[in-house]
Structure formats: structure tokens, C-alpha cells
């Protein structure tokens, strides 16, 4: 029997060196015992570690990660188990990747238990300030983990509390930090930690952040296991908090509704000035009222009303279907991919986007959530009808010389005609209010197509917009003549 004596700290490195040497010499797992400080010497003596052999020893990175965690487990068999797994992995490739394997299952559970214990250490260590006079403040803590995790758990504190000196004492040993590498010392009796006023404040916080109307003790116990309670001073408050909770809930019920303090009515009256909902006279009023519109149900899911924007005196009004994802988020029309396409097409047609009014037939985004995206939906005839109130207002206030309808929904909203778009595109129709409406494709239709079809449609859009520019030129000439 070969006996390997592992040190108190840096166990992983020691196990790894010994395991590699043993495996290279072909030593079977059952011929090795692994001992730790404090273990009794072997009754019959033990063989020394044989020299390294010439067998190749391989271990994957995943196995070493697993082993690094498992050596911090409290199970005395952990070193032997890991060595057995290492030997098995030399012959049986792939068993390390099989979660259904019993040995891997056991090691994974051990690693998980260690990870959890480390996590709980990071959560439940409580520092007390220690007296000191140096430039760095000093803190100390006592903690009793389930596993020997002092070395694995403390680098976290060095990163987090780099500007203070601290020590964490555990039954396994003591970790000390003063800005350099963490020093590990053998265990000492539990230190007496001084009173710390911040701990009283913490108890105040703990008692007051608790809602007595909702008691879920199971959830508390599963995450803050009772085994850790003895070192968490705030847990001493729990019995009283629980005992008092029913009384507090009952007191709330008995007190019932109360009379408001006198100043409340004044404050509320000042805040709740009734908004002006009379017929809007200016575009500004119309935009304000539209922002609060609840004429149809689209407002519940959409972010905000996307009202028209641009130059009110332009004479050209461009009407799309409804805002899309980007427009909904930004609150401005035609800022998404379709809007960008429209802006390029307008530039090609010689129309200055700043000298036109861009708006939509429906002012709220309609969509269905699918996975992580919002899929655009076409508004119904009813939604178009409800929203025509705003479109009509915009038209009354702007009195455009020419309107361009992008796509079927806009054409329908403006002319009342729901016939297919293909034969109507490129023609001028009459709007319900009498103005001329040039019908063309919606840019999003072009985005949905590809290849030559998209090219043709895009060329048609640009041609239609050029025609609009021309018509607009004629209109402004007439407009100016009639004005004089």
C-alpha cells in the first residue's frame, strides 16, 4: 500500500503531482491511500511514492476543473475517487462527458456541493471592523463552511475588498490579506470580534425590509440553510419577526382605510389639472391629444403615439401605413429600415425630406410578440377608421397640395377605396376630402421582396416620387399665383 500525505493547503497541486506520478507508474487506485494532516499513521507502515513511470497520463481541462473543485469537498474519499476517475479516463475515453455515468454523477454532485458552499461563503461571511490605526481599515470574520473551501473561497474577497486588511478565520484555517497575496495559516481558536455599530444598523434594515403579510419560510430556509445561521446575527431576529407578523397583518386589516392628511388634496389638485380635450386648433394641441389617444386598443401594447413630423408648410404629405418597431420606440415616423429606404428614394427623386410632412394612416404600432421579436401586423379597417380622426386633423391643418399614399392601408385611409394596389400605382386619385393622392408602393414591401422584383418596385417608387415632385412644383406655382 502506498500512502500519499497531502498538505493542509495547496492540496490540489499536491494531489495532481502525486496522481500524475502514480498513474505514470501504473499504480492501481486500490493500492493507494490518501492522507491529510491529522490522519493517524498507517498501522503497518506504508510504501513510499514510487518513481514516475513512462506511461503517458492525460487529463482534459474539464476533468482538472472538476478535480480542482472536488478536492475542496469534505469527503475523505475524494482523493481516491478522483484518482480512480483519472485512471479510468486513461482507458475509457468519453466517459467523462457522459452525465449518465454513476462515477461522473457522484463527482459532479460533490463539485456542485463545493460550489454552493463557496457561494454561501461569499454570501454569509460578515466582517466586523477591527481597531487599527494604519491607512487601511481592518476587518475580521469567523465562518464555518461545510467543506474545506478556505483557499478556494477567499480570492473573491481579495478582489472585492482590495483596499482593506481582512482576515477570515474558519475551523480549517485562517486567511489573511493585507494587499499582497493571501496568507493561509493553520486553525486557531475562534477569535472574539469587537462590537460594530454597522451591525446594529444591519439588524434594523433586516427587520424592516421584511413584509409581514407574506410569509414564505420554506423559500428562506432553502436558500439560507439553518446550518449557516449560527454565524449570521440577523437570523436571531427571525423568531420575533415571525411571531409578530400575524399581529401586524391584523392591525393593518383593523385599521382599514385612513383619512388623508390635509395637504394631500392640495398636492393632488395641482397635479391633476384636467388636460384640454377641446377640439385642437394647432398641430401642437393635436399632437398632445393624440399622445393620450385610446380610440382603439392598439395603444395598450404600443409604446407611444407616433404623430406626423416635418414641415407643416411643405405642401407635400407622405402617408404610410403605421409605425413599425423603430418608430414605436423613438416616437418618430419613418426612422426604421423602411423609412431609410423611403428617405433614399426621396433624395433620388429630388424631394427634400425636411420640406415634407411624414405621417401614417394609423398612429400606433400593431404587433404580436413572437420569441424575442415584435412581428408587425397590418391594422384592421376599424383601426384605420378610428385613426382617420387624427389623419383628417393633420390634413385640415396642413392643407397639403399633394399627398403620397404609401401602400394599400394608406390608400384606403385617404381615398376610402380598398381595391388592389397594382393597377392604381402611379396614378393620382382623389382623397375623401377632395385633395389629390398619388398612389405608390410602401417601402416595406420592397424590403420584403428580393432580386429583380425588388429592383423594379424600387424603381417604380422613385419614379412615382419624381412624379410627385413634378406635381408639387406645378401646385406650388398655382398656389403662389392664386395667392397673389
Amino acid at each position: 500500500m502506498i500512502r500519499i500525505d497531502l498538505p493542509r493547503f495547496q492540496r490540489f497541486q499536491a494531489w495532481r503531482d502525486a496522481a500524475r506520478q502514480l498513474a505514470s507508474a501504473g499504480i492501481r487506485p486500490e493500492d493507494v491511500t490518501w492522507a491529510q494532516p491529522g490522519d493517524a499513521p498507517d498501522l503497518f507502515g506504508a510504501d513510499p511514492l514510487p518513481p514516475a513511470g513512462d506511461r503517458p497520463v492525460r487529463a482534459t481541462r474539464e476533468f482538472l476543473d472538476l478535480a480542482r473543485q472536488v478536492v475542496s469537498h469534505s469527503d475523505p474519499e475524494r482523493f481516491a475517487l478522483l484518482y480512480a476517475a483519472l485512471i479510468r479516463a486513461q482507458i475509457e475515453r468519453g466517459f467523462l462527458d457522459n452525465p449518465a455515468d454513476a462515477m461522473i454523477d457522484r463527482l459532479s454532485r460533490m463539485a456542485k456541493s463545493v460550489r454552493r458552499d463557496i457561494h454561501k461563503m461569499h454570501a454569509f461571511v460578515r466582517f466586523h471592523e477591527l481597531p487599527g490605526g494604519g491607512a487601511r481599515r481592518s476587518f475580521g470574520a469567523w465562518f464555518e463552511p461545510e467543506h474545506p473551501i478556505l483557499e478556494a473561497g477567499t480570492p473573491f474577497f481579495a478582489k472585492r475588498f482590495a483596499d482593506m486588511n481582512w482576515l477570515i478565520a474558519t475551523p480549517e484555517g485562517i486567511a489573511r490579506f493585507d494587499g499582497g497575496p493571501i496568507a493561509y495559516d493553520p486553525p486557531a481558536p475562534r477569535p472574539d470580534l469587537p462590537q460594530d455599530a454597522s451591525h446594529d444598523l444591519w439588524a434594523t434594515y433586516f427587520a424592516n425590509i421584511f413584509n409581514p403579510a407574506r410569509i414564505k419560510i420554506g423559500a428562506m430556509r432553502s436558500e439560507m440553510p439553518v446550518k449557516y445561521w449560527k454565524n449570521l446575527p440577523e437570523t436571531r431576529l427571525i423568531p420575533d419577526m415571525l411571531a409578530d407578523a400575524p399581529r401586524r397583518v391584523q392591525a393593518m386589516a383593523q385599521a382599514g382605510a385612513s383619512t388623508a392628511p390635509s395637504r394631500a388634496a392640495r398636492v393632488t389638485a395641482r397635479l391633476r389639472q384636467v388636460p384640454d380635450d377641446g377640439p385642437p386648433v394647432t398641430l401642437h394641441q393635436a399632437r398632445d391629444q393624440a399622445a393620450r389617444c385610446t380610440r382603439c386598443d392598439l395603444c395598450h401594447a404600443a409604446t407611444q403615439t407616433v404623430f406626423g413630423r416635418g414641415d407643416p408648410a411643405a405642401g407635400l404629405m407622405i402617408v404610410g401605413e403605421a409605425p413599425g418597431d423603430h418608430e414605436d420606440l423613438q416616437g418618430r415616423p419613418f426612422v426604421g429600415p423602411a423609412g431609410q429606404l423611403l428617405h433614399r428614394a426621396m433624395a433620388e427623386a429630388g424631394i427634400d425630406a425636411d420640406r415634407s410632412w411624414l405621417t401614417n394612416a394609423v398612429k400606433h404600432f400593431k404587433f404580436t410578440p413572437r420569441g424575442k421579436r415584435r412581428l408587425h401586423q397590418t391594422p384592421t379597417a376599424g383601426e384605420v377608421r378610428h385613426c382617420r380622426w387624427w389623419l383628417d386633423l393633420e390634413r385640415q391643418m396642413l392643407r397639403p397640395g399633394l399627398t403620397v399614399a404609401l401602400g394599400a392601408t394608406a390608400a384606403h385611409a385617404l381615398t376610402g377605396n380598398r381595391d388592389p394596389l397594382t393597377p392604381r400605382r402611379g396614378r393620382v386619385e382623389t382623397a375623401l376630402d377632395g385633395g389629390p393622392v398619388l398612389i405608390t408602393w410602401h417601402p416595406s414591401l420592397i424590403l420584403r421582396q428580393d432580386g429583380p422584383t425588388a429592383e423594379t418596385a424600387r424603381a417604380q417608387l422613385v419614379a412615382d416620387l419624381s412624379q410627385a415632385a413634378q406635381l408639387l412644383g406645378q401646385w406650388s406655382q398655382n398656389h403662389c399665383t392664386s395667392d397673389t
Partner: protein
Amino acid sequence: MAMKSIQQKLAILSDAAKYDASCASSGTTRRDSRSGGIGSAGGSGICHAYTPDGRCISLLKILMTNFCIYDCAYCINRVSSNVERARFSPDEVVKLTLEFYRRNMIEGLFLSSGIIRSPDQTMGDMVRIARMLRVDHGFKGYIHLKTIPDSAPDLVAEAGLYADRLSVNIELPQDASIRRLAPEKRPETIRAAMADVRLGREAAKERSFTGKRPPRFAPAGQSTQMIVGADQTTDRQILTTSANLYTGYRLKRVYYSAFSPIPDASAALPLIKPPLMREHRLYQADWLMRFYGFEADEIGAAHPSGNLDLAIDPKLAWALANRAAFPVDVARASRDMLLRVPGFGTKTVGRILAARRNGAVRYGDLLRMGAIMSKARPFVTLPDWHPGALTDSDGLRARFAPPPEQLDLFS
């Protein structure tokens, strides 16, 4: 009025903050204090304690002040409440945060506030506290700031530079309820504030033409909270609202908070026992939407009432309502379908996919890999297990639902 001590203020302003459910401290940028300052963040979140209400304490969750000019019926801090009021100075908040942090009691600060004077004034003070922590003290821990809707965009932009997470509470699942119970708030401004945070985050991810990366903006994302049980909204509508929020504003989390009685209640709302089980089922359903590929409507449609079955979990309820899709052959089923098997979690499914490349997966293997076979049995076939008529049997739901309890006369 006598000056309140820090302890008295802490008692009032943590009591006032306890109705906010969020305590997350995970998912932000990795950083620590080795290069100066104090603190670290970026790993998984750490819950430093738990209170008997089952909620974790990860952050110092306080209100800057509980003075408020708004009158939201569900809120203890509304203007018409007689609750005792207090106000922290920025220095006090900073000191409390740092001293608790140094004793390893918290991961950071979750700062919210009543609205004092104006949204801009309030948000400005909160941003100032965050700036003091980050800039003056080099604080590397976690900061969650509640964003006040209606506050100026440049304040929100600055908040995003210091905070790991920003949140705007939607408060209630339906616009009509918000208008009725929180008359000073407007659902469209709440949503626009969420849209602004999303756009801020996206803008911060785009490099400029010189290749320079803009400063990070709320790297741990945004979340929201809605109160459940204060109005008549069905679970199906609640989940639809959540789906809209997740997809629209890329939220990290929607928190559901069972409507809980408050001292000094408003007459507009009943003093009910908080619907904790409903809250729990909603969280489960929310998980199904985010990690299991379920759509809100599928989950909501499992029960004709539009509410979730309180006796069984929503995945099981969906499977029972869609038995035609089962049993599933574990050896062949797609990942998407395995995720829909009751009793299989995302980790279990990952393990099944790994294990089945190494050979047949049997009943005992599934048990070892963490599957809850008592739930999964009727819905799967394995080389050594076939549910037979169990999948379609009439009494299947009754096997899972807990037996009816004797009603407690005093509840």
C-alpha cells in the same frame, strides 16, 4: 420636528422600499477593486440574507425619501397616506451603502424614491448619489436605480452611465388599471421611458466610426415590476403584457408582486391576503416564456378561465391540455420538444442531449440527471418505460394536484 437618527430613517425608508421585489445583482460587467476603489461585480448575483417572506437581500434596497406627491392607491408612500416620512441626505445613502458593503452584507444599492417636487428634481438627486458612489468613492459594486418616468432624457442618460440596472415599474398589467389606480402616472410615458433605456443600451453597443466604444449604459439591463391581484386582469393578459414588455424593451426581468396589504390603506383597494401562489405560478410561466420557448398565449390558453391552474405548475397544465403531443420519445425528440416535457428542466435537457450521444438513456439515467420522473413519466417513452394509457387517462391531473385542504377558518 426632531431630527431623525440614521437608524430611524433607515427603518422608515427600508420599510417603504420593501414592496419592490427585484433583488438581482447579476449579469453586469466584470470588474473588481484590484485596480483601485472598492468592490466587485459581474459574476452571478449573491444573496447575502433572506427574510422570512422568502425574498432575498442582495442589495441595500431603500428609498431616498418616502415623501411623494403622487397618489397611487396601492402604494404606502402615496401623498394621501399618513405613514411617517423621512428623507436621507445623499451622504447618508453613500455612507450606509459603503459601510454595509465593507462588511459583506450587500452587493450594492437599489435606490428608489418617492417623487418630491418634480420628476427631474428626484431623478437628479438619485443620479447624484450614484455619481458620488462611482466617481468619488470608486465603488465597483452593483447599483440599481429606479428611473422616474417623465424625467429629462439627459438625466436618464447619466443614470445609465453609473447604474448597472435601470428599472421603470409598469405597476399594473393593464393601462386602464394604471389610469385608475395611479392617476398621476401615464402608461404611455412609462413605456416610452423603457423604450429610451433600450435605445440607450443599443446606442452604447455601437462603435463610432473611429472604432471607439461609447461608455457602457446600464450593462445589466432593465427590469420592471407589476402588481398582481390589485385589479381583475387575468393571468393570460398579464403574460401577454409581459411578452410585449420583453420583446419591446428587451427587459431582463418582469417581477410580479402579489398585491399585499399596506398599513394605512387606500379605500380604493381591498385588504386581501397576498396571492402568493398566483405570483409563484406567474414566475413559472414567465420562465417558460424566456427559457422554454413557450408563447404567452399557449400558457394562458391551458385553462378556459384565462388564469393559471394554482394546483399544478403551468408546464404540467399545458402538457395536460395538449396530450396529443405526448408521449415524447426521449431518444429522438428535438430539444424544443424535450423542453416541453414536465419535469425536464433546461439543464436536464442539456444532459439528455449529451447522454444520448453516448448510448440509450434509461429511466434510472434520467433520475440521476435531475429529471423529476414523477412528473415526466406520463409524457415520455424510454427503452425501459412506456406510459401506455397513462398519458390519456382521465385521472391524470388528480395525480399531481394536491388533495383539497380543509379551509382554514381564520384565514
